[in-house]
């Protein structure tokens, strides 16, 4: 991997993300959780339990905001170049295709994490029942980081494998695995990113007294360090596979068609 080339791609992509349309998407994404928290305050009043507020913020920010941000930027990272017919200019550079992919991955992660961190910070205004706002802010911030890294790597891989229909397949994958399988109380849910994020949250914040089936989801099954190690290893593994596939694929044909 060429670090300099990766950073060049990151810089270029990040600058492109500062156009009005993309900033509007960013702001929309960052505003969704605080807006919903305000709606909850209006609808339910200040009587909500601390666990439920934490759970809602967890669902909204490290899950929904991160997933949507990465769906927009990480999944179509390569397809956007093919659709715009700019891939051939990038693929013949000595920096290598891998650097292009990693630079775009980094830009997607930073773009998403920044939106999520803004969402967390503003949402804290509505997290009234929580005794320790700072702790909640810190935990969610860390979760956003791991969520962006892991989901970003997963989505980049899906985008490289399923070039043309990446977004639809990623949505399908997320619905089936992260949303459905992730809730099955069996070994299979340990293969989802959400399981490890939940495990970390349960370790760092009390998640008792959640209503309905949600209560059983937050089990202290493993130390937080183990979850972090698994997520980081998965991130590195997924990115390595994505770069290897990109390296082997002949994308010029897809570009021409």
């Amino acid at each position, binding site marked *: 991997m060429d670090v300099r080339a990766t950073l060049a791609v990151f810089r270029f992509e990040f600058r492109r993300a500062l156009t009005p349309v993309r900033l509007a998407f960013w702001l929309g994404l960052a505003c969704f959780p605080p807006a919903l928290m305000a709606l909850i305050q209006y609808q339910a009043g200040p009587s909500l339990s601390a666990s439920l507020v934490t759970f809602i913020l967890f669902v909204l920010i490290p899950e929904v905001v991160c997933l949507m941000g990465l769906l927009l930027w990480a999944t179509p990272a390569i397809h956007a170049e093919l659709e715009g*017919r700019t891939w051939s200019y990038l*693929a013949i550079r000595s920096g290598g295709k891998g650097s292009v992919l990693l630079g775009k991955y980094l830009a997607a992660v930073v773009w998403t994490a920044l939106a999520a961190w803004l969402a967390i910070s503003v949402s804290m205004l509505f997290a009234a029942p929580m005794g320790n706002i700072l702790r909640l802010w810190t935990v969610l911030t860390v979760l956003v980081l791991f969520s962006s890294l892991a989901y970003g790597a997963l989505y980049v891989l899906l985008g490289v494998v399923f070039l043309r229909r990446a977004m639809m397949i990623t949505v399908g994958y997320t619905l089936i695995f992260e949303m459905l399988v992730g809730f099955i109380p069996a070994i299979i849910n340990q293969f989802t990113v959400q399981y490890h994020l939940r495990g970390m949250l349960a370790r760092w914040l009390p998640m008792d007294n959640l209503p309905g089936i949600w209560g059983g989801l937050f089990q202290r099954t493993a130390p937080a360090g183990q979850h972090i190690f698994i997520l980081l290893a998965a991130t590195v593994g997924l990115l390595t596979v994505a770069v290897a596939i990109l390296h082997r694929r*002949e994308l010029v044909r897809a570009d021409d068609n």
Partner: protein
Amino acid sequence: MIHLENVTKLYGSVMGVNDVTMSLAANAYGLIGPNGSGKSTLLNLITGQLRPTLGSLSVLGCDPWNNREMFRRIGVCPERDLLYHDVTGFDWVRYLLELNGYGRAEAAKRAGQALDQLGLSEAMRRRMGGYSRGMRQRTKLAQALAHEPELLILDEPFNGLDPLGRHAMTEVLRQWVRDGKGLLLASHILHEVEAVTDSFLMICSGRLLASGSAEEVHALLADVPAEIHIRCQGAARLARQAVEEELVQAVRFTDGDEGLVLSTRSPAAVYARLPQWTDDTNVRIHELRSSGESLETLFGSLLRIHRGGS
């Protein structure tokens, strides 16, 4: 500079390049072929974007597939238009130079120089979405030249350029050739290539049909019989008359007795005699046309030769 040995590229069951063998020393070459002849596939193989299904190739002494070292030494200008509407020409060229390993300051310097050389000094800080087609073509060429490659590979660089733009592009390429650097220029228009180089490679249906100098191509063209297409009633009678006077090399019937193709090396003589023939044979001509571009005829003839015809 470029060496291909029995290179074949298949896209599923479609053949992009068919058993091409060639060896090119460092020089400037024009790759000529009609649209869809396999030029772009061949260039993509040479630039390491595609892997040959069969055979092997080397460019500047190395296997081009994913070869980052080789990418440093070549400059490529693909045929397709570029569509980063929201980026300035300068930022884009600098970005590509950074991907080639240059530091930010050096990349900026080289990007500025390359764009300046192509007459884009004023427009380089504007977004490319506002560029004309000719400006985009020149920006594309700038990114290919900016890192001073040993070999420049251009796919249809004259597409969309107005006469002034064509002239300017030709001058830049001529200078490149005068500097003794390698050039492979693909086009489907002979005179565009002829203005830059006098060495040609002729490709059609994925096969390398011929190679040589401009004189050799023109000699080939001169030697290729012209085709005269006639639609009439009583084509056989007309053909007989033409053959008897030994002015045609071959006749071919199309549409039963209503279509006739005369191959001749003396088209003017045939045209001069045609009124007399129609009188003598009492044949009424509905349509008369000569074959298309001579280059097209040449490719047709070369293909027939390759397929074992004459």
